């Protein structure tokens, strides 16, 4: 394992869900997560304490020596938002495949039919993608898509605008048109814990403007969406994400995924990646 991979922050628990110490895996190695007197801790297999950060409702740790702070989502701090702990779902796929699927809109009409997309509204218009060198993050902006029911709070079909951000190799943040508050963005995240390079635990989290839905309804909506993705993610071959061009065929609609793969390659993040054709 190289420092390039170890030195990132990874989500390992939802803070509100930590009770008795729980054993889990991070990058294929056993760790234990627990809480004492209100403070969360993480230990490696030898019992050594690992660094921790509590942010976005989740506990983050790193098996290495992170050379930068965990990313922030300033928008999520604005007042009036409801912070939604969605819980976790385990998936047998590369953590990178889980992130890449989250960055994709072209599957909405087929996988999230009549919710996030519907035929015949399948066209993906050109949008902007870049690697923001100053922060070393992937950003896609001006992404627009017609959605029958964009959120729990949406009534009827609307064209939704999205911004996607990849602030860490196994995390993505989505900013999305907020049906009840034009001009504001809902924040929906996908935090992925790499259990191994072909198995992950996915922790979605949201910061939404929604005064009508119950918390349970918002959780249900996001679990519904992610479980629709899970049956795709467990059936992609290979399970790892191919980084070399040639194994898979992108189109213009996949510009975010192309940038994500290029960025992973650039920063040397190869855990869960397939580098040469099998």
């Amino acid at each position, binding site marked *: 394992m190289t420092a390039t991979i170890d030195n990132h922050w990874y989500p390992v628990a*939802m803070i*509100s*869900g930590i009770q008795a110490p729980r054993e889990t895996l991070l990058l294929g190695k056993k760790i234990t997560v627990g809480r004492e007197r209100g403070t969360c801790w993480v230990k490696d297999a030898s019992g050594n304490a690992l660094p921790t950060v509590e942010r976005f409702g989740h506990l983050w740790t790193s098996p290495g020596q992170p050379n930068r702070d965990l990313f922030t989502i300033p928008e999520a701090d604005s007042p009036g938002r409801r912070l939604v*702990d*969605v*819980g*976790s*779902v*385990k998936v*047998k796929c590369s953590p990178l495949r889980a992130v890449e699927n989250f960055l994709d809109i072209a599957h909405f009409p*087929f996988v999230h*039919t009549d919710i996030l997309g519907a*035929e*015949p509204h399948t066209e993906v218009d050109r949008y902007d993608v870049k690697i923001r060198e100053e922060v070393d993050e992937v950003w896609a902006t001006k992404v627009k898509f017609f959605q029958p029911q964009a959120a729990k709070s949406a009534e009827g079909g609307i064209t939704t605008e999205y911004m996607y951000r990849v602030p860490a190799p196994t995390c993505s943040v989505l900013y999305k048109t907020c049906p009840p508050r034009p001009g504001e963005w809902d924040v929906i995240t996908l935090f992925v814990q790499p259990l191994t390079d072909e198995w992950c635990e996915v922790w979605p989290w949201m910061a939404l403007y929604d005064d009508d839905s*119950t*918390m*349970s*309804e918002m*959780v*249900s*909506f996001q*679990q*519904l*969406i*992610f*479980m*629709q993705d*899970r*049956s795709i993610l*467990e059936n992609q071959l290979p399970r790892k994400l191919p980084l070399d061009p040639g194994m898979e065929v992108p189109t213009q609609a996949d510009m975010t995924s192309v940038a994500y793969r290029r960025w992973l390659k650039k920063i040397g993040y190869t855990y869960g990646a397939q580098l040469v054709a099998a």
Partner: protein
Amino acid sequence: MILYDYVLSASCYKVRLMAALIGKTLSLHAVNFHPAQEHKSPEMLALNPKGTLPILQDGDTVLTDSADILRHLTAEHPEWRSPEDDRWLAFASDLNNSLGLARLHDVISYEADIEKARAAGVAALRKLEAHLTEQRFDGLIFLTGKTPTIADIACFPNTALAPDGGVSLDPYPSVRLWMRAIRSLPGFIEMPGIHRLHELAHPA
């Protein structure tokens, strides 16, 4: 009628699907089963001391067993009933304890003897395949005859969701055609992990 519902529960889906197929509108009350374990909250335990879902509330009647709920929903729909149903409602409960448990283990980390749960699931799928194959020899596609009954609706969800728990459905051709027949029913609704038949919609 109010259904206390969890969107990922195979047993709650039985109820939603049955209601959709007979054109009955349910008022859904979302329960945060995972991660918040809201089904064990004092309010929910007051309604159902067993702490399980689904719960159907119809006036003063509160039903907490999915087989009872299916019977209740179809009380005035004899076309959805067969004398053979009881046997398959019991079998549906075996599916829930095997394939259903494997799925909860693989998806939301339920404690389970996973190899045992999967092996029991495979044994149940083989029984289902054998029966459905014999039905097809007689020109019948559903569990009890030419038309579906609550038996089919009770057994369908955990069967169709078997891959979620690491049990493949690939080697069961009669099960596959039976699932397809259910997905083709007018009024069919999907749940995460069970796709609708896209071939039926919007030819390009």
